[in-house]
């Protein structure tokens, strides 16, 4: 039950972000909750307060910026989807260097430097050669 509602919240955040991205242009950078709610209401049954809560959460998470305009807030995405994806990628790549952060994210590849790629390729050739000879001998193990 709880899990479902969490997933639904994640799905709503996506929908809200997508709406904000779709509605904003370089000339018109920010939108109000009401406008987003109106746009979302065309495809789903959603309360105004829900949209407001989700947008508040996104602003807290640093994905939307907001500024007061009269009695309401105007929201703008802090970056395009591509920009945010790129910064997410950078963040996880940088996580390899931080001592504590390495425990947060587990990478398939830890720390291969550019220097050792030729070394790795040589090792790969060895693994491949060993495999083909062991198949040739009819044994299917990983014996050297």
């Amino acid at each position, binding site marked *: 039950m709880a899990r479902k509602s*969490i997933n639904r919240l*994640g799905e709503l*955040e*996506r929908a809200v*972000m997508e709406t904000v991205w779709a509605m904003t242009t370089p000339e018109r950078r920010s939108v109000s909750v009401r406008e987003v709610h109106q746009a979302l209401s065309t495809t789903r049954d959603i309360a105004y307060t829900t949209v407001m809560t989700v947008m508040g959460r996104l602003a807290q*998470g640093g*994905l939307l910026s907001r500024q007061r305009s009269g009695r309401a807030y105007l929201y703008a995405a802090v970056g395009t*989807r*591509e920009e*945010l*994806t*790129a910064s*997410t*990628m950078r*963040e*996880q*790549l940088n*996580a390899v260097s931080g*001592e*504590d*952060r*390495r*425990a*947060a*994210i*587990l*990478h*398939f*590849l*830890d*720390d*291969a*430097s*550019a*220097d*050792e*790629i*030729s*070394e*790795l*390729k040589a*090792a*790969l050739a*060895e*693994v*491949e050669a*060993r*495999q083909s000879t062991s198949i040739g001998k009819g044994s299917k*193990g*990983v*014996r*050297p």
Partner: protein
Amino acid sequence: MARMHRFRKAPREALLVWQAVSLGGVLAALSLAPASVAVFTEAPRWLVWLGILVAAAMLGRLLWSGHTVGSAIRADRRRHRDLVDLLGTHADPVHGTQVRVLAHPTPTAYCLPGLRRRVVLSEGALTALPSDELTAVLAHERAHLRARHDLVLEFFTVLHRSAPPWLRAPQALREVRLLIEVLADRAARRAAGEVPLARALVTLARGAHPQEALAAGGGPGGESTTAARMALLAQPTAGFGMRLVMTAFGLLVVAAPVVLLVMTLV
């Protein structure tokens, strides 16, 4: 111990020994003050309390750094998971694990452990990896998630943090990290075979550094984790005898300080 590379052939037992040695060290350090006081038969009361106080302070420091490191890790992970959930394409779950794909050309693959676990791939990784290599990568990440390797890593990070700087052993932390990778590699090797796994390692290493350097040989940091993993790929797991000895040693190391403390106190 970090230099004893033959133990890497039994990654599971080697991890056990590392955990045992660390835990034994912590227990010994904690019982040092109370035990040394207990040696004197006519110890004044304040000295007894001082011993207990020193041990309590050490324990407090350990718990405190466990709390801070643990909550920093979880906050980091939660934030990053929210980002990939929001920005990534939701791919088909693999064996019940949610997979997210980030629209980015740099090949990368990683996982976010925890209750709401995720495997994250970039589009670059999906383009670069043929299906058998992708199977190897996914099996590797799933092994991390299933066996909760993050908790092992967290334990050592906490110990590392709470130890005084002159007692810290960065190479121990590095070795534990390597052993975790080797353990996940074994699972990937069982799922996809050693050649696809070796190829995937090279593919992703090359993708991360498109401007391939001309210089050959290890970097300044000595032997890298990836090269060590490559070398271990073709090696069989160590024999039963060696694994048994390692397990026994691990148990002994934990038991020793406890027994010694009990003996001095009784």
